[in-house]
């Protein structure tokens, strides 16, 4: 079971990355051109979102009457429903970084093997940012337990 789960996850990652390459969302210049509505705007990425969201929406409906996934015991979806400050602040910070470079996490990982030093530098900084958030979280927990 574990073997198949790992295989399915690998296949999903491969297909995801293939989608990023085919749609050219893997290219930071293409992403920045999508965000550049006042310049030479390239709306292509809206079609990536449209294609992906439609398939996911139909599939999610289709899967919603299943009690468990094919290879595991339970579906794990986020349980939070509240729109809170960390959500909005995090999304804004992410958007700033996304605009500055044209990379979000998926395309950055998927282009690592293209051998560009810029990609390596970005991914290293991204991992550091994730690590910084983990520290921030741990300090928050310590503060709460201290009170």
């Amino acid at each position, binding site marked *: 079971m574990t073997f198949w789960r790992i295989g399915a996850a690998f296949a999903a990652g*491969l*297909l995801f990355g293939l989608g990023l390459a*085919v*749609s050219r969302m893997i290219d930071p210049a*293409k992403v920045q051109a999508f965000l550049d509505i006042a310049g030479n705007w390239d709306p292509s990425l809206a079609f990536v979102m449209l294609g992906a969201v439609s398939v996911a929406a139909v599939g999610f409906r289709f899967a919603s009457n299943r009690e468990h996934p094919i290879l595991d015991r339970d579906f794990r979806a986020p349980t939070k429903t509240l729109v809170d400050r960390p959500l909005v602040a995090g*999304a804004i910070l992410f*958007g700033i970084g996304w605009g500055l470079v044209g*990379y979000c996490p998926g395309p950055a990982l998927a282009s690592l093997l293209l051998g560009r030093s810029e990609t390596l530098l970005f991914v290293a900084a991204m991992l550091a940012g*994730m690590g910084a958030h*983990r520290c921030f979280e741990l300090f928050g927990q310590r503060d709460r337990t201290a009170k």
Partner: protein
Amino acid sequence: MENFSPGAAAIGGVLIGCATLLLWLMNGRLAGISSILGGLAQATPGDRWWRIAFIGGLIAAPLAYSAISAHGLPRITIAASPALLVAGGLLVGFGTRLGGGCTSGHGIWGTARLSKRSLVATAAFMASGMIVVFLLRHVFGG
């Protein structure tokens, strides 16, 4: 708009949607890249290997692409300076963990499920991304 490529974009989008569904139907997990990667550090041993496998597949994807396409490896252009790459990377890493998702988790999966949190997050990162590119290209002229 001379680089507009809606066909390839939609086909790529459908592939991304299928990948998301594959992970959901088979493993019951969300294909949110920042959460899969960021959760790796805290993951229990049983929850670790599918994450590594997914990321491995994502990293191997350009090789699969070059094997099946006539264009070889995907071509990319990165305009950002080293300082911007570091700043952008830190913000993307920290922001996606604080906000609980990125373009995949909130933008695709959350939007498909009409999650209010994800719709708000997607609107927020699209808006801040557009403002930053506007400032970068049209105000500071970088």
